[in-house]
C-alpha cells in the first residue's frame, strides 16, 4: 500500500513569530522544521504501510527556498522519498492555492491513501486536506483518532462533539489525523544517515501545470486590511499558598455569587 503524507515545513514555533509589515505574510526566513502535527501523520503512514505488508511512504510538501530540513526529519523516520514543490511564485498562497499545488503533486505519486494533519501549527486553517480531497475527487475522513486499513477499506474512529464515529471509506481516500493518534518515533542514527541519500524530487508550480493566476499571491482572493494589537488582559491578585489559599478561592467564588 502506497501512502502519501502531506508534511508542512514551518518556522520553529518556539521562536517568536512575526508578520511581514508589507505583505502581511508570515515571515518564513530562517531554517524550517517538520511541523509537529505532521509527525503523527508520518508515523501513522509508516505503521499502516508496515501492517499492509509493504508499500512506500511518500512525503509531499510545499515550501519556500527549496527547504528540505523538515523533509529530512520525516525521511529519517522512515519515509522512502519526497516530492517538494518550491517556487518563488508560491509565496503568499492561501489554503486553496496550497491545496491545488499539493493535489497536483499527490496525483503524481498515485497513492492508495493520503494522510495529513487536522491543522498546521502555523497556519491552522484546517481546510487544506479537505480541499485536496475535493480537487482529487476523493472521499475524506477528518479528525481521525484511530486509523486501520483492511484491504481496500480504511476504517477510522472520527472525533465528534459527542464522542466518536466509526467511519469506513474505500481507498483511495484522504484522512486527517489528530495529535496523539500514535506516538511518533525518534529518527535513529541509521535513519538520519539513510535520509541524506533518499530521493527528494523538487518541482516548480509550472512543472505541475499550474500558472501564477492560480497560486501564490497572484491567485489569492483574500486580502489583509489591517493588523492591530489586541486588548490585553491584566494580572490581578496573587496569593502564595501557606496552606489556606483555598479559602481565598472560596471567598472569590462567593463574591461572584457562584457559591
Amino acid at each position: 500500500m502506497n501512502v502519501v503524507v502531506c508534511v508542512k515545513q514551518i518556522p520553529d514555533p518556539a521562536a517568536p513569530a512575526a508578520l511581514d509589515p508589507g505583505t502581511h505574510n508570515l515571515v518564513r526566513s530562517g531554517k524550517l522544521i517538520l511541523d509537529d502535527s505532521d509527525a503523527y501523520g508520518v508515523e501513522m503512514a509508516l505503521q499502516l504501510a508496515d501492517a499492509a505488508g509493504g508499500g512506500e511512504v511518500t512525503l509531499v510538501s510545499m515550501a519556500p527556498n527549496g527547504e528540505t530540513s523538515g523533509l529530512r526529519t520525516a525521511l529519517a523516520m522512515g519515509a522512502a522519498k519526497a516530492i517538494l514543490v518550491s517556487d518563488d511564485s508560491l509565496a503568499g498562497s492561501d489554503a486553496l492555492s496550497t491545496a491545488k499545488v499539493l493535489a497536483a503533486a499527490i496525483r503524481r505519486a498515485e497513492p492508495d491513501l493520503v494522510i495529513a494533519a487536522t491543522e498546521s501549527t502555523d497556519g491552522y486553517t484546517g481546510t487544506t486536506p479537505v480541499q485536496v480531497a475535493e480537487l482529487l475527487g476523493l472521499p475524506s475522513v477528518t479528525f481521525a483518532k484511530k486509523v486501520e486499513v483492511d484491504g481496500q477499506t480504511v476504517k477510522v474512529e472520527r472525533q465528534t462533539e459527542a464522542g466518536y464515529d466509526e467511519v469506513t471509506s474505500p481507498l483511495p481516500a484522504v484522512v486527517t489525523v489528530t495529535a496523539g493518534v500514535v506516538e511518533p518515533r525518534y529518527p535513529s542514527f541509521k535513519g538520519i544517515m539513510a535520509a541524506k541519500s533518499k530521493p527528494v524530487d523538487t518541482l516548480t508550480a509550472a512543472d505541475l501545470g499550474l500558472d501564477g493566476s492560480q497560486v501564490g499571491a497572484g491567485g489569492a482572493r483574500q486580502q489583509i486590511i489591517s493588523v492591530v494589537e489586541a486588548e490585553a488582559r491584566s494580572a490581578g491578585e496573587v496569593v502564595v499558598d501557606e496552606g489556606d489559599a483555598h479559602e481565598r478561592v472560596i471567598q472569590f467564588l462567593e463574591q461572584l455569587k457562584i457559591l
Partner: protein
Amino acid sequence: MSIETIWVLAEVADGKPITTSLELITQARSLAGTVEAVAWGPGTADVAGTLGEHGVTTVHDVGDIGDALPGVPVASAVAAAVAAGKGPDAILFPATYDGRDIAGRLSAKLDRPVLTNVVGLSADDGGLVSQHAIFGGTQVVTARFTGEGPGIFVVRAKSFAAEPSGGAAAAVVPLAVDDTGATNTAVVVARHVEERSGPKLDEADVVVSGGRGLGEKDSYAMIEELAGLLKGAPGASRAIVDAGWVPYAYQVGQTGKTVKPTVYLACGISGATQHLVGMKNAKNIIAINKDQDAPIFTVADLGIVGDVHKVVPKLIEALKARG
C-alpha cells in the same frame, strides 16, 4: 458591495440548532437584510421555529443524508445553488468538525478561498470583513475577500452572543444534492457517545481545567470532582489530551474549544498562548500553579502560587463541608 443575503450553516445536535449557529445567525442579522440557513438531517422542520426566532426566514434543507458524512453532500447542494445563481453573498460556518469539512469542500467546488478562525465580522463599504486573532490573541488581523463569488467564513464559537429577535418559524425549502460521485463514499457505520455529566464545556458557567501539572492521569479525577461541586464542566490543556488522560473533546484552546464562562479555574496549566486564546475571555480567571512565573498568572484575576495536590483537595473538602 452591499450584502443582501447571508446563509448560515445550522448544525443540529440533540434536536436543536447548536449555539454557535445561533450566534452566527444573530450576528448575520446586523450585517445583511436577509438571513437564511442551510441544514441537513431528518429533523430540519423541528428546528425551523428556533431558527426563525433568531431571524432566519428560510431554511434550505438538504434533507436526510443517511450514513454519509455531511461534508460532501451539504457542500454539493450549496455549490449547486450558487452555480444556479441562487446563492448568498456570504456563507458563515461554525468552526465545528462538520462545519470545517463542508466549508473546505465548498471552497474547492466554487474555487473560492475560505477565511477560517474568524472571531469577528463586520461590514464596511467594500462588503464583509472578518477579524482573526493571531499569535495567541495578541494581535487582531482584519481581512476580506476579493473577486467574484460568495465569501466563505468559518467562525469560532463564542465570537458573538446568540439572541432571539422574535421572528416567526422559518420556511423550509428543499436544497437538492448534485451528483457527488466517488467523493461521497465515506460512511458512518457506528456512533459512540462518551458519557459526560453536567453542563457542556462551551456552555458551562464554571469551567475547571487541568494540565500537565496534575502529574498523572489519575489526578484528573479531582478536576472532575471540583467541576461537579461547582456545577461546572471539566476541561483540559492539550498536553494532557495528547498524553491520552482525557478525550480531545475536553481540550480548551486554539485547536480545542473556546470557552467564556463566568469563572475559569486553571489547575497546573502553564498558560501557553495556544491555551490562552481559548479561555482568556472568561469573565474571571483563577489559576493555581506552583511556578509564580507561569504565564497563566498574567491573565488571572486570582492567582494561587501553590501545589494543585494540596490546594485542590482542600478546596474540594471545603466545598463538601458547605453541603
